[in-house]
């Protein structure tokens, strides 16, 4: 089947565009970049058709990477049903976003660099998804973090972009630390990192009622996942990552990279299901993040920030799904989220592109008549994310909420409330941008087909994608949870209520929103400033770390201790030498005296030591 070809095409695209991009015409750059992803997608389809129905895991072993004592780690790719879903999402949505980016980046500098990095990202993401052991997955994991840094800091001449890139990478790294520790523990516990061996061994272990080794491993894996998938407490990098170009936000921070954490948990289901403490932690973190981010998203004025917090919130839903044991529902939501969130970001990009860089909602308004396709597709995406009946979001979100109800009813109610908030803020953005009167100063225009084409395809997927019954497809891997019609319709109803409230506040009675925020006063300021979490982190973590590094590690240890020791050796040598040189007085008779005294001392020493024998 040659699975290795799937990631190799984008890697070749990266090399070609990266090395030659400066000298080849734009059309060729486009061909290489989009073509490599298209080839990858085609190969995925071919592979899946060839393997279908995918009953058992298909593994390809390439070579042994590390062989040291008992440690044997190979480079293996594998495809099972879960991989199949992820591959289709990554290459399919990735392809659409690459096509879109051709239009979006038309007038931007560093054109070939952008597409080279985008292709490199695809390579690493595909390695992550295809990996058959934890170390190879970690390679992909780190690689997508790197590409996120490169792409968020794409406009590297802007201070806020480079800072955001640093933040994304460093916060991710904290999560990676947890992930590394988990990998070490897995190795220690199971003696191997191979998925099949680890999960088979894990299935033989009993469920841990109290904290044990599996709880430790899974909690550390969770730390890694919270970093990569932007959950509390490591979500702070994602809103800042909006500094990157919008296709980056769509691809990396909506459709693919951020879902790597959810994928990893779903893949490690055999470990997680044996550690109920961690499962509850995952669910609670997911739920808290979903609610928390939704409240922030309601107040933001930058359209990309609204969608960024929405992503954090929806990722919280996915965590809730896998946390209550509905792994297939979580993955289902990954897929539908890729559709509608990818579309939301691409649509936002189209709006920003049409307004020549304006991102503030307060400078928009009445854009419907200027960019109808964008408006309609964004409307479809907003319906999907709100869980409007029969859209893709309706099916996936309800699968999660119903499973949550079975775990603990209060989780369902908080989830439903958050669904209402989601509908509210996403339609707030839509109404403020597209209805009313235009408040800005640019000349809004519709985007070219190369951009609107992917929008339309994603809109169709957002509306109809729910009928791709992923939970049923993933049945052999994850047991399907029972349905509940009444709960599903209840959450849909709350979603509709959210839409209605948004319409009320921003279309029917425009002044209502401002008066409402004024009456809330301090609470509004708190939420608008993202609960001052960044400021708290700054004071509590960042500043002490920088100060500590500067004072203790740099001045104290490096300049003081290490340099001091090394330089000190030189100084001591000089000191000793400056004393010894006093012997050289120039007086030859004193030399003679020293020689005689020395030889006498030598004779005495030999005599005392028992003679020369």
């Amino acid at each position, binding site marked *: 089947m040659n699975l290795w070809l799937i990631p190799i095409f984008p890697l070749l695209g990266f090399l070609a565009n990266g090395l030659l991009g400066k000298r080849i015409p734009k059309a060729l750059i486009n061909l290489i970049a989009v073509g490599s992803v298209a080839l990858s997608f085609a190969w995925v389809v071919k592979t899946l058709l060839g393997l279908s129905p995918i009953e058992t895991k298909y593994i390809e072993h390439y070579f042994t990477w590390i062989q040291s004592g008992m440690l044997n780690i190979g480079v293996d790719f594998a495809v099972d049903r879960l991989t199949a879903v992820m591959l289709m999402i990554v290459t399919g949505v990735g392809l659409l976003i690459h096509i879109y980016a051709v239009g979006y980046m038309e007038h931007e500098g560093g054109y070939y660099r952008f597409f080279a990095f985008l292709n490199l990202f695809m390579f690493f993401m595909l390695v992550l998804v295809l990996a058959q052991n934890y170390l190879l997955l970690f390679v992909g994991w780190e690689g997508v973090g790197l590409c996120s840094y490169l792409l968020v800091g794409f406009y590297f001449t802007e201070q806020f972009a480079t800072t955001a890139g640093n933040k994304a990478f460093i916060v991710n790294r904290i999560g990676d630390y947890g992930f590394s520790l988990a990998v070490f523990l897995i190795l220690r516990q199971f003696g191997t990192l191979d998925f099949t061996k680890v999960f088979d061994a894990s299935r033989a272990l009993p469920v841990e009622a109290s904290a044990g080794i599996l709880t430790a491993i899974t909690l550390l894996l969770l730390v890694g996942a919270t970093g990569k998938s932007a959950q509390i407490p490591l979500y702070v990098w994602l809103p800042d990552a909006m500094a990157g170009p919008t296709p980056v936000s769509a691809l990396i921070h909506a459709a693919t990279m951020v879902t790597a954490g959810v994928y990893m948990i779903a893949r490690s289901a055999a470990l997680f299901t044996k550690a109920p403490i961690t499962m509850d932690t995952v669910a609670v973190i997911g739920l808290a993040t979903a609610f928390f981010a939704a409240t922030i998203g309601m107040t933001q004025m930058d359209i990309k920030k609204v969608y960024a917090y929405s992503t954090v919130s929806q990722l919280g839903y996915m965590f809730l799904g896998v946390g209550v044991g509905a792994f297939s529902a979580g993955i289902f939501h990954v897929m539908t989220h890729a559709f509608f969130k990818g579309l939301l970001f691409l649509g936002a990009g189209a709006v920003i592109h049409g307004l020549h860089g304006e991102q503030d909602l307060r400078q928009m308004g009445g854009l419907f008549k200027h960019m109808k396709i964008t408006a309609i597709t964004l409307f479809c995406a907003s319906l999907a994310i709100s869980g409007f009946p029969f859209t893709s979001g309706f099916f996936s979100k309800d699968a999660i909420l119903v499973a949550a109800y079975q775990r603990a009813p209060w989780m369902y109610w908080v989830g439903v409330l958050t669904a209402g908030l989601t509908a509210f803020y996403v339609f707030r953005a839509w109404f403020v941008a597209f209805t009313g009167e235009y408040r800005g100063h640019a000349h809004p225009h519709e985007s070219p087909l190369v951009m609107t084409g992917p929008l339309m395809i994603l809109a169709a997927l957002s509306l109809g994608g729910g009928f791709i019954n992923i939970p049923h497809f993933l049945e052999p891997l994850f047991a399907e949870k029972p349905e509940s019609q009444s709960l599903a319709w209840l959450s849909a109803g709350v979603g509709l209520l959210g839409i209605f409230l948004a319409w009320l506040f921003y279309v029917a009675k425009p002044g209502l929103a401002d008066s409402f925020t004024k009456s809330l006063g301090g609470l509004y300021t708190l939420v608008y400033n993202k609960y001052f979490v960044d400021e708290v982190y700054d004071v509590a973590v960042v500043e002490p770390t920088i100060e500590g590094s500067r004072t203790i590690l740099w001045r104290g240890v490096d300049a003081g201790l290490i340099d001091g020791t090394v330089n000190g050796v030189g100084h001591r040598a000089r000191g000793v030498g400056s004393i010894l040189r006093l012997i*050289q007085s120039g007086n030859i008779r004193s030399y003679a005296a020293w020689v*005689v005294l020395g030889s006498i001392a030598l004779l005495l020493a030999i005599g005392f030591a028992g003679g020369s024998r």
Partner: protein
Amino acid sequence: MSNLLTGPVPLSWYLILSAILFGLGVAGFIFRRNVITVFMSIELMLNAVNLTFITFSYQFKHVDGQIYSFFVMVVAAAEAAVGLAIILTVFKNRATLMIDEVSSMKY
């Protein structure tokens, strides 16, 4: 006493003589001011050592000691040649043979 007059010379006398010569050489090496005298003292030391070697060679009936004394003589000769060359050069430059006055190579 009659043994001393009619018999062979006791070997210990040679060693004592050698030690006295060596001691005189060391004393001259340390206390004399003229460079050439210092050199003569060095030669004296070397010859004292030669005597010791020969004595022990005769005592243990090993020829090694005499071979060593050959070496010592060769080295002494070479060293005397080089040393005298140095003294001549120093005398040409400093016009003095007093060892205390050739002391410019201080720290």
